[in-house]
């Protein structure tokens, strides 16, 4: 029989014992908790035949495996975060024994406590913005085709459209992306930028001009969502997507350690 290890999903504080009872972990394993010094590690057993070094090297390149592992990891972290302040750990953090997990909790206690302090009472929200510049290029505006348009207006609009080069349009939407980010950061405790997603992989046709995460006080969640809705109406060529609530994945580490962008 293959050696086993312990997969650690995240570290919580004051996690109710029953919160994880019906949650399945990676590879369908039952989830349990390990308590140590006021911190709770959320874990499940894994086979090192699947999660050992050699196996991971291979498995991480398998999209099907990566997806099911990522989704299982997320389901556990999400369930824990819905019940208690939870700092997610990186994907596939595996220890050889419960003692080794306890040792890690002891040694990193200060860091986890700091991280828990940062995220308690707050939730991560994702905001993505896409620009579709096709409508902003010359000849693409609907207004100049309107039969009711007055000749003078029509001429001016056409001239404006002609002068509106794609480069200008790009600069303009980037400035708007910056404005969106600035306004949302004002409402959030903090924000971080992820890398733009590859359209081939996201399935989105628009140009991604913002891929951000914001850590928002729960008391301001409604204000934040209202601001996203308002900013979504800024310009017809810019689309916003709100995702979340997320466990605070993007805010588990200190700002200096952030590698997202």
């Amino acid at each position: 029989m293959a050696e086993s290890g312990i997969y650690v999903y995240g570290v919580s504080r004051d996690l109710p014992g029953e919160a994880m009872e019906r949650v399945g972990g990676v590879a369908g394993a039952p989830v349990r908790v390990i308590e140590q010094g006021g911190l709770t590690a959320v874990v499940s057993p894994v086979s090192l035949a699947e999660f050992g070094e050699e196996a991971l090297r291979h498995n991480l390149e398998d999209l099907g495996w990566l997806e099911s592992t990522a989704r299982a990891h997320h389901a556990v972290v999400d369930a824990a975060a819905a019940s208690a302040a939870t700092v997610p750990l990186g994907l596939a953090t595996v220890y050889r024994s419960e003692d080794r997990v306890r040792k890690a909790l002891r040694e990193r206690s200060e860091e986890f406590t700091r991280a828990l302090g940062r995220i308690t009472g707050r939730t991560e929200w994702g905001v993505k913005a896409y620009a579709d510049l096709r409508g902003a290029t010359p000849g693409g505006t609907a207004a100049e085709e309107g039969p009711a348009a007055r000749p003078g207006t029509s001429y001016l609009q056409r001239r404006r459209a002609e002068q509106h080069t794609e480069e200008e349009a790009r600069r303009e939407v980037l400035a708007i992306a910056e404005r969106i980010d600035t306004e949302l950061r004002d409402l959030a405790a903090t924000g971080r930028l992820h890398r733009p997603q590859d359209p081939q992989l996201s399935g989105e046709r628009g140009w991604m001009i913002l891929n951000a995460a914001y850590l928002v006080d729960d008391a301001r969640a409604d204000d934040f969502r209202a601001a996203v809705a308002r900013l979504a109406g800024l310009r017809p060529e810019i689309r916003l997507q709100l995702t979340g609530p997320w466990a605070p994945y993007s805010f588990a580490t200190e700002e200096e350690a952030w590698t997202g962008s």
Partner: protein
Amino acid sequence: MDRVVSERSAPRTAVPARGQRVALVDLLDRLLAGGVVITGDITISIAEVDLVRISLRALIASIRPEMNRVLDDEDAGQPPREPIQGTVSREDM
């Protein structure tokens, strides 16, 4: 073109509840760049984020042939219509 208009006028107050299926690409943004990185006993554990990114670069490079093969099997040679969702690709990864 219509897409922008229709999506823009769609109601935006609906907020997905926890537990709803999330887009893999959004999840991988967070799982690969986020989370506390602690060194597990398995040395590939994501303390070596770079190593994982290298793996992902290989993954991304393999997606298209893989996708074509899968769809060919299912679709008898039809060109792929839907991109497979994956993670962020960046030249300097």
